[in-house]
């Protein structure tokens, strides 16, 4: 977005003025001076927090994988809260599937082939969904928030396939 210098100045001035009016009186406290190595070690409470968080994350990861990763991979394509289509990832040599989603901003094109699912074109400004490339593992997802498109990969949930190793 191009903003003229004048309006930039006005915005900065308004923000500064609003801040000056709203700011409470500030106080200082002095943290101890420490080297980077000391800082990286953290306190006991910090390490306990890290341990607790890592445990929670590992548990959540395990539970999610257990819930979604069973069976061959299926790509679900959503717009907002509606499921538009579900495709199993095609085998090597099969024709790729092109799927167009009419989103808030325009057409998003999803391609599903042997390499996985990817968004090849999107009308959004950031293009992060396109840049994130192809995904093929259950539990991966590609989201285009501005266009409200989500491609989520999950296992088809067939427990008979649990023992199959790719």
């Amino acid at each position, binding site marked *: 977005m191009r903003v003229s210098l004048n309006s930039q100045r006005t915005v900065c001035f308004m923000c500064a003025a609003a801040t000056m009016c709203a700011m409470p009186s500030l106080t*200082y406290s002095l943290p101890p001076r*420490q080297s980077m190595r000391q*800082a990286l070690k953290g*306190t006991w409470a910090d390490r306990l927090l890290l341990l607790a968080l890592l445990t929670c994350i590992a548990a959540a990861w395990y539970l999610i994988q257990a819930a979604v990763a069973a069976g061959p991979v299926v790509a679900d394509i959503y717009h907002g809260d509606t499921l538009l289509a579900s495709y199993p990832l095609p085998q090597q040599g099969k024709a790729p599937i092109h799927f167009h989603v009419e989103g808030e901003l325009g057409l998003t094109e999803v391609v599903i082939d042997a390499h996985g699912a990817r968004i090849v074109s999107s009308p959004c*400004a950031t293009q992060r969904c396109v840049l*994130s490339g192809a995904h093929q593992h259950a539990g991966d997802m590609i989201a285009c928030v501005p266009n*409200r498109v989500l491609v989520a990969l999950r296992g088809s949930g067939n427990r008979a396939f649990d023992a199959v190793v790719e």
Partner: protein
Amino acid sequence: MMLQNRTIARPPLSEVEATARWLALLMLAIGLHIFEASLPSLGPWFKLGLANLVTLLALALMGPRAALSLAIGRVVVGSFFIGTLFTPTFVMSMAGALSAAAVMIAAWRWIPGVGLVGVSLLGAVAHMLAQFISVEYLFIRQPALFYALPPLLLLSCISGWINGALAGYIAGRLGHENNSEKN
């Protein structure tokens, strides 16, 4: 002529200094916010959290109100420059920045023995969670979105820890520099 005779009540110098310091931190945070947005994407949801580091610095040096107002200020002004004001990206940034600031303030105040590293860690995780929850609630409305959350939270833990250490290092230096200037 009339103006010359009037005396204007000036705020105490320390107050002006503190406000100037806060504004300097705000400018730094806005700069880092824009810098992060223009970096090549490190993954669709993941940022280094450098702008959040400045919120943490404000919290450590100036207290909760300064930190919260800085978080809001940098997201609003930063979005002006990036061109994402009032878009979903802005909502995600704002939700993340606000909840990170709130969680960091609560942790700093109420968790005994916690250092800046722990506070930053919680802030980073809160930022990521708030982004996901706001997107799930407002835009995409699919629980499938949360499939991608655990690995991203793991990355948040790493970046949060490093940012916390950096903030501790910088806050220590800044604080003592002030002190030696005053003496």
